[in-house]
């Protein structure tokens, strides 16, 4: 039995990947992640110089919502409301950061960038490749990006430009929404090697006493364990529509969540909120939970079960609808004696 997973041409020791964010913002975190036997690390997203202001974070930049303060720190539901935007250093710092991470790391290091015009995307991607990253993730769906940037024009051009400019694997990170399958297909058609589903979404919360939005008065990225339900759906839909691997991300806090993503067709699963809230040991705890499941089910590799739940989905026209039985559902299986009981 092994957690080994192939993804974008790499053989990862685990399907778990540290998602782009505060747990991949410093070179020393590479060691912390590797101690927990993580599969790969996606570095914090760096923005082009035009978005330099996104490197400065307001304080405080997070708010923990829906946290049950009376659960001894064991709340299973929460929302991480975050106004942390790009990598806090300059682009030169970021290239040095990639180099330093590569020197330390034994697992693949995936760079992550954000820009707007195609030339900037390509330029940054080339620098990420030159700095030694093993792959790149295009954060076209950042919750902090300008809403005026449109997928069809800006981001399709960006994917194309990056694909032409670099040789290493390119993943595209997409946000949840009705267009996500269409965007997955577009990413695949333009040469992406993988898609990451789904980014945090842009959210808002209001302080009813002050009668204004909380934190800094502006939209923030929201995520948390609840985010897995719509991501499950998007992963299942995408799995049927595209051939490139899917890296699922969103709300995974346990081995159970990761197994669900794999059953729905994901190759890898990116985690972050759980590491922030519960510490680095969450990674090894989740790995252990996956291994326990695999042992119980007699599975040797996660690849054996990948997409199994999607294959078991019922097509819409075959969903059994109410058919006149007095009761329906799995606990009320029809028995012959019911016939006489109910109908004489």
């Amino acid at each position, binding site marked *: 039995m092994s957690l080994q997973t192939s993804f974008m041409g790499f053989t990862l020791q685990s399907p778990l990947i540290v998602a782009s964010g505060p747990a991949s913002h410093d070179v020393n975190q590479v060691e912390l992640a590797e101690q927990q036997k993580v599969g790969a690390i996606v570095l914090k997203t760096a923005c082009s110089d035009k978005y330099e202001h996104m490197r400065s974070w307001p304080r405080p930049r997070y708010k923990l919502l829906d946290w049950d303060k009376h659960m001894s720190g*064991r*709340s299973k539901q929460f929302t991480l409301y975050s106004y*942390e935007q790009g990598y806090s250093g300059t682009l030169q710092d970021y290239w040095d950061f990639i180099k330093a991470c590569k020197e330390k790391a034994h697992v693949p290091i995936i760079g992550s960038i954000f820009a707007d015009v195609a030339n900037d995307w390509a330029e940054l991607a080339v620098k990420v490749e030159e700095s030694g990253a093993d792959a790149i993730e295009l954060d076209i769906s950042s919750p902090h990006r300008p809403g005026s940037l449109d997928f069809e024009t800006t981001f399709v051009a960006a994917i194309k430009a990056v694909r032409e400019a670099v040789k290493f694997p390119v993943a595209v990170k997409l946000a949840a929404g009705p267009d996500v399958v269409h965007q997955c297909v577009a990413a695949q058609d333009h040469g992406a090697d993988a898609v990451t589903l789904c980014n945090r979404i842009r959210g808002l919360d209001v302080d009813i006493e002050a009668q204004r939005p909380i934190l800094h008065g502006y939209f923030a990225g929201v995520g948390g364990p609840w985010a897995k339900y719509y991501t499950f759906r998007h992963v299942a839909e995408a799995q049927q529509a595209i051939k490139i691997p899917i890296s699922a991300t969103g709300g995974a806090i346990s081995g159970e969540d990761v197994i669900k993503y794999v059953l729905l067709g994901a190759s890898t699963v990116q985690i972050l909120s759980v590491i922030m809230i519960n510490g680095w040991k969450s990674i090894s705890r989740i790995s252990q939970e996956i291994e326990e499941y695999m042992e119980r089910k007699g599975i040797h590799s996660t690849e054996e079960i990948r997409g199994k739940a999607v294959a078991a989905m019922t097509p819409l026209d075959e969903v059994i609808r109410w058919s006149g039985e007095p009761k329906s559902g799995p606990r009320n299986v029809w028995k012959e004696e019911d016939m006489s009981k109910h109908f004489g």
Partner: protein
Amino acid sequence: MNGDIGVPMNATKTKYPGLNPLPPEFGKDYPPIAVVVEEKCIACDRCPPICFFDAIVMEERPKHSYKRTAVVIGDNCTGCGLCFDACPVDAIIWVPDKSGLSVPGKKIPPSLEDTDL
């Protein structure tokens, strides 16, 4: 298998290695904004594990009614705000930054002002 979120783990006193490259002497110029009101603290141990930056530890306070209290380590605190909502008695408070210094970095350039960043 039950997604055992929030299991408290021992906080360490080591400096959180993340968040380089912040500006040099960031902690000096931008003092911590999270402060524990020791009289209010009930020593429940919930804030040290929630701090991703290892900036909160429990310290002995023989005269305190709970004999211990949470303390914010200024050098490690990035002012992220996670701890405020983990405290059941609101003993961690936000001290607005009165250093008079602007947030490091640049303002939104005029060319982007009309976009909803």
